[in-house]
């Protein structure tokens, strides 16, 4: 239960500038996910918060208490920050039993024995692994080790729980189970959580907020649905969503406070209130990119008013959904239909696209200029 504030954090490894002016506020009780491809600085940010790395610039406070002040070369010790960390590798001590792994930190805090016992058993029960308490980590499966690592981190009742790609070593099925488990854990403990992952599904399903990283900088901080519906730039749009978002080049022009766009999807006029503050030419035609999520494209076998006539390029039924590649002029784009559907190759169909759901990006700046609503 704490509020973390990062201000102007810079981290260098030698001359390598890995964190660039990170400003991030994590509200009390947030499940904040740091999301981004590998090497973008998300794990480094987590390690800065935990105290395992010392940034060369910036200030960090937890509940208003200064933990980092690079100007004064002040860095509070990790154990003085009231947090705990689950490592990607779990970092379970192989020479200690599950019980001892969890009790270790509590013993160091000089808790009395009964209290340690109670806390260890509570966290083991919460993670539903109390039957393994006398085993050694090597005698457990990956999923069980994962639970021990989490139990160890929560046993000390940290105000802040840090998780570094905790699910990346689990198989697909276990991952879904653990996602549910983590979500419940967050609810149950009410702890502020910072969660690092490169997996967008994890980020979208569990977080209350997502901080999207891009090459050492914070690109976008928003709720999962906002990030999904209105990615701030083309890179973010491309990174989020599976199958990936359709990007179609077009020409745009501002006319009477409205954005008029022409592309292979036809002509669109977007009202002024849906436009963002991002930079765009006030007059004259400019290059833009339209972005439409595949599930926003409906396919009709009959002609529909306002629908776009297209041909089926390929159709991939996958049981629960069907991915259809459509072709309009020279442009190809994907449509995702829930359920099983069958289309002939080169069949003529009509694509229904809700223009409110279209994002428009300025091609030059790659930033979002028209929001989906």
């Amino acid at each position, binding site marked *: 239960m704490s509020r973390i504030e990062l201000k102007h954090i810079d981290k260098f490894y030698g001359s390598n500038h890995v964190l660039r002016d990170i400003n991030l506020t994590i509200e009390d009780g947030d499940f904040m996910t740091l999301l981004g491809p590998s090497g973008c600085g998300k794990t480094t940010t987590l390690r800065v918060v935990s105290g395992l790395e010392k940034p060369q610039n910036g200030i960090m406070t937890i509940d208003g208490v200064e933990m980092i002040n690079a100007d004064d070369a002040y*860095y509070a010790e990790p154990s003085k920050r009231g947090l705990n960390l689950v490592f990607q590798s779990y970092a379970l001590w192989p020479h200690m039993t599950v019980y001892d792994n969890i009790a270790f930190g509590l013993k160091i805090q000089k808790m009395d024995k009964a209290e340690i016992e109670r806390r260890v058993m509570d966290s083991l029960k919460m993670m539903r692994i109390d039957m393994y308490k006398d085993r050694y980590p090597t005698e457990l499966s990956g999923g069980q080790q994962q639970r021990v690592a989490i139990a160890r981190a929560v046993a000390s009742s940290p105000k802040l729980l840090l998780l570094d790609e905790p699910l990346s070593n689990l198989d697909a099925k276990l991952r879904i189970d653990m996602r549910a488990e983590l979500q419940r854990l967050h609810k149950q403990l009410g702890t502020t959580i910072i969660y690092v992952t490169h997996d967008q599904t994890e980020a979208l399903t569990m977080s209350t907020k997502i901080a999207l990283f891009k090459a050492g*900088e914070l690109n976008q901080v928003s709720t999962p649905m906002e990030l999904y519906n209105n990615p701030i730039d083309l890179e973010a749009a491309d990174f989020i969503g599976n199958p990936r978002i359709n990007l179609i080049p077009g020409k745009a022009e501002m006319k009477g406070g409205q954005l008029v766009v022409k592309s292979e999807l036809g002509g669109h006029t977007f009202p002024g209130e849906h436009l963002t503050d991002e930079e765009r030419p006030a007059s004259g035609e400019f290059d833009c990119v339209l972005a439409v999520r595949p599930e926003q494209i409906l396919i009709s076998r009959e002609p529909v008013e306002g629908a776009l006539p297209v041909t089926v390029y390929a159709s991939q039924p996958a049981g629960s959904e069907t991915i259809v590649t459509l072709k309009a002029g020279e442009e190809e784009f994907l449509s995702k239909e829930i359920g099983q559907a069958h289309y002939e190759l080169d069949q003529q169909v009509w694509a229904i696209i809700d223009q409110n759901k279209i994002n428009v990006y300025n091609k030059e700046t790659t930033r979002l200029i028209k929001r989906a609503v």
Partner: protein
Amino acid sequence: MSKNTLPKKPLTQKRLKNLILNVVRNPFNMIVLVSLIVLFCLIVIPLLTMIKSTFTLAQSELRRVDGHVGDFTLYYWKYMLTGKLSKAVLLEPLLHSLFCGAMTTLISVPLGSVLAWLMIRTDIPGKKVLGLLVTVPYMIPSWTKALAWLAVFRNKTSGAEGFLCGLGIPIPDWLAYGPIAIILCMSMHYYAFSYIQVSGALRSINSELEEMGEIQGANKAQILRHITLPLIMPSVLSALVMTISKSIGTYGVAANLGNRIGYYTLATKMRVFIDQGPQGVGYAMSIVLVGLAALILVGNQRIIGVRKSYATVGGKGGRSTLMPLGKAKKPMMAFLFVFLFLAMVMPFFVLIMETFQVTTGAGYSMSNLTLYNWIGTPDHAERYINYPGIFRNPEFSSALGNTVRLSLIASIITAFCGQFLGYISSRGRGKWYGNLTEQLVFVPYLMSGVAFSTMYFSMFSTPHLGGLIPSLYGTFTLIVLTSVVKHFPFASRSGTANMLSISVELEEAADIAGASFWKRMTSIIIPLAKNGFISGFMLVFISIAKELDLIIIMMTPTTRTLSYLAFTYSQEGYNQMSDAISVVVLLYILLCYIAANKIGGADISKSW
């Protein structure tokens, strides 16, 4: 917006205070500092002291040179390089060393590589037994091989006849002693090094690489020539460099087989000067030896990189299909058996039998057999002899005690320091202190045993820094210290490997849990490092137990070890006694190996 350069902060009082606190509060920094100072004192200062002493006039030269004790002088270097005796002092021993080293390398590297290939890549039968037998010579100290050689080839020149002379085969001096004997004995020792290196490399090669060659239509010879050989070339090269730099500095073999006929190498000649003076010349020669080894290793570094060169190339073996030898199987087996018979079975049979003989070379009839050398008392001696059988000889028991004591104490200290230094190098990878530690620790590796001990001898024969470093001449402490520091490179390498296997995250997890540095050490690092520590300890233990070269210069009657006693007896002509002692040493080492293998899971291929 983002700045691309490291920010420069104004140095406020608060910042300064925190900066100092950050360094001082972290015990790790203190440990690094202390280790660096200790390493500096144990490695850099002795080296400088030795170099300085070659330019400083000593008491014993006052008769020959004008000046005062402690004056700067070029006398020693001139004596060695330009004096009338220069040819006998430096040039001849140098050429002998180079010749023996080069020939040893020429024999042992191909031999070891071929054996490795046979054992790893072909379908030769009986691999388990053969593989063990082939590595046995490496466990045996090289000087015992020299004794075994003498047991077989000795002739009248050194008093008692050996096995072959006893059979009536005349053995000329040039065969019994000198370069041929030295080269063959060293080859029988150092081939094992190439064997271990190359077999490691061969094991790490995925045989699919070779099978691909076969699919492309290459025949066996072409596969060997174009695929296998280039892949193991780095290991072969590094084995080559190792062998030549080690064999140039070898003392025990050269002294046992060369001194009797006045054949001196750099290492043996150096000892003559250290013993008989002028010592400064001996020190200067030792610097030449160090320079030579450094030169070879630097050359090697240029080619393959020094770290790689002394790490046995390991790695997980891929799928491995064996090459059928076909018709060549029988000749290859015959070659192996002849080799093992000549290199191991026969010499050691003869060596062991000699310990039971009254007169060497006089056959194994009952009248010539005795237990005297083991348990006899002087009044029962068949002929005039100074010593009782070794088990009744107080010199022997004292030497046995010293050997056990030395190997135990020194190896415990070494293994402990090794883990410690390994911790610093592994946690400081890529940081200045990690690199500096690794480099300092590597220095003793450049020196042959004799050169290294000469350095310590010169450093500690007189008090330094006004008595702060006392004179340790003739003390057991000095021998322990020398053995410890000389084994630093090996011990710290195994320590580094051990520490690297303990993930930093395990420590970080404890850090976050609130464990202090010392708590992390005692409850995380030490319990996890235990196994690696034991196997590292065992290997150092054995290496010190068989050591002769390193400690020979420092021996005094009270500090003698078994290897030195065997060496002295052999020099004095008590061959049977000397053989008996070396049999005891062999048993001691073999027992230790077995124990190391059983307890610590120690692997011989990690020793050198």
